[in-house]
């Protein structure tokens, strides 16, 4: 089972990933917590959500995260996919999940997830990572928390420079 880094304001910890990603068209494993595609949750949502396991949905870059709006309260997590680290659409998906759709559950980065992007991912409200570069939780945490100040409001709610008490 893959490693999962969970990130909170207090730092990062490595935990075991309890979710199984289910490929479209494959049967859902019995009793396991699952991550399914947007298409699948739209088609089979009621059945999956009634089955008693925890359910997450993976959003691909071209998909509109708004399509999940009604289901969100019943989802355990949303995974945002980075097929390539350069594909920045998931930053918008994550931001909208937090700021517009009010999602408080886990937002997980999957795919080409690299330590160099830890900072921006965290700021967009992503709080769980399946790193593709073998980063440890400590390395991840250092990269994500490297900057003492931020210049703009974002989904992580950090106080921007202009609202810091020390601003001159």
């Amino acid at each position, binding site marked *: 089972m893959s490693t999962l880094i969970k990130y909170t304001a207090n730092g990062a910890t490595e935990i075991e990933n309890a979710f199984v990603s289910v490929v479209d068209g494959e049967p859902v494993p019995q009793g396991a917590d699952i991550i399914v595609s947007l298409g699948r949750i739209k088609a089979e949502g009621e059945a999956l959500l009634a089955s008693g396991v925890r359910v997450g949905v993976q959003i691909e*870059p071209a998909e509109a995260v708004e399509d999940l709006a009604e289901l969100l309260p019943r989802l355990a997590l949303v995974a945002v996919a980075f097929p390539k*680290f*350069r*594909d*920045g*659409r998931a*930053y*918008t998906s994550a*931001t909208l999940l937090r*700021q*517009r759709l009010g999602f408080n559950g886990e937002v997980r980065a999957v795919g080409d997830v690299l330590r*160099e*992007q830890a*900072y*921006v*991912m965290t*700021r*967009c409200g992503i709080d769980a990572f399946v790193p593709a570069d073998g980063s440890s939780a400590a390395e991840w945490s250092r990269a994500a928390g*490297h*900057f*003492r*100040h*931020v*210049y*703009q*409001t*974002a*989904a992580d709610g950090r106080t921007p*420079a*202009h*609202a*810091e008490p*020390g*601003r*001159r």
Partner: protein
Amino acid sequence: MYRYDAIDKEFLTDRSNEFRHQVGRRLAGELSEDQFKPLRLMNGLYLQLHAYMLRVCIPYGTLNVAQVRRLAWIARTYDKGYGHFTTRQNIQFHWVKLRDAPDILDALAEVDLHAIQTSGNCIRNTTSDPRAGATAEEIDDPRVWSEAIRQWSTLHPEFSYLPRKFKIAVTASAKDRTAARVHDIGLALCRGRDGTLGFEVMVGGGMGRTPFIGQTIKEFLPATRLLSYLEAVLRVYNRAGRRDNIYKARIKILVSSLGAEEFGRQVEEEWAQIDAARADLPDTELARIRAAFIQPGLEVLPPVSDSYEAARAANLALARFARNNVSAHKAPGYAIVDVSLKAHDATPGDANSDQLEAIADLAERFSLGDIRVTHEQNLVLPHVKQSDLPALFEGLVAVGLATPNINLVSDIIACPGLDYCALANARAIPVAQSIAQRFLDADRAELVGELKIKISGCINACGHHHVGHIGILGVDKKGEEYYQLTLGGSGAEDASIGKILGPGLNADQVAPAVDRLVEVYLAERQGEERFLDTYRRIGMTPFKEAVYVDAH
């Protein structure tokens, strides 16, 4: 001038420490060049034909004395003794060693400079009017808004991995000195009917292989709503911009395929959903930024300086300099001075360390310590007392920086071309020099008047050839360098894309062809017409016939 406080300084320290760590990992072999490339690019470090190139950000083209001295020192210590000012108001060092890069960034950070976002698919340096705060023409000081954008866009988490690079310009006068209409977003300060301050928002301008003039999607955006509106534009682009083909990834392609109206509608729809209280800057912060740009030290002077008038009457060289490089300041008795980096034998935009130090000294003595960079690759000393102009002129002459050719035929924009650039088809710098050489007669150049020549060594258009009154593009024809001329482009308030004159010319034919174009103009012009105006009135044919007369 905006001064960095402890927060801004700590931010830069954090950034340069991060990069030092990454370079260490690269030099130790922990990172491959492939893995390292995006990291160095995020710090402005490019790999060029002969060496690494470091592009240093100059926010909205504004420098203080200590910064210019530090740039001079860096050029001397880590480069071959010169730097190159770019069309986006930045400076590049073309001969940098990887292992020196972290030290250079530290040295820059000590004077509040950096290379953040000078590369990569992110929001680049926001450029603005080099006469900001000095010209009476401006509706408001564009530096206030440029600084707000600088902060907002710095490591913006949602918009650091856009489909492609993203450039914003803020212009504040009817005369556009920022090329706003060829930017991804051009912001033109304006006043609403009730006098409130706002922006006309233009999107989708750009050059490269498919040039576009930006289109207005909002006639009047209240100025205080700027950041939320930018967020909306960037979000629509981040989601919908193409990522399958880098040549179609700029916002200009999205705007042209959707149509400006539909793009604007999508932006409005997104904007309506953004929480203004979160996204827009509070008035207190805008007031704090604005206060930083109030210019101290301007004296109350008579509108005319007798000593300057007398010096000008006595010294023909000073008089010529005054005609071409000196403009009106908003404060009586002051002037704005353009410093040309286009001496006929120079590389357009280059300044050596001695020149940079001289500029710093002169700015300290004569321009309230303020130095600006223009997108036409020159410098500006914005706050000079008229009575100091003779002494300033002598100081500039001493270091070869008094070339009196602003906006004239030899004030050429040229990209680095084949002399430095791995993508080039042809040389650009020697072509610029050959044209300047041909128009050495300063009286004739003045007679010709405003004529903007812009040269790119390939279709990426770094030299803005699409918007040159005369544009020159280097092309490769069966392994040989050729040049394609275009006429009628403009990057200013009357922006347009130039049209191709005819078949390509070889390097030796370019300057004579420019000469013939100029002769046609001089024969045909009416009244105060510039070259561009005459071309627009009489069309391509007379110009084409003159250049290709031998081919008949």
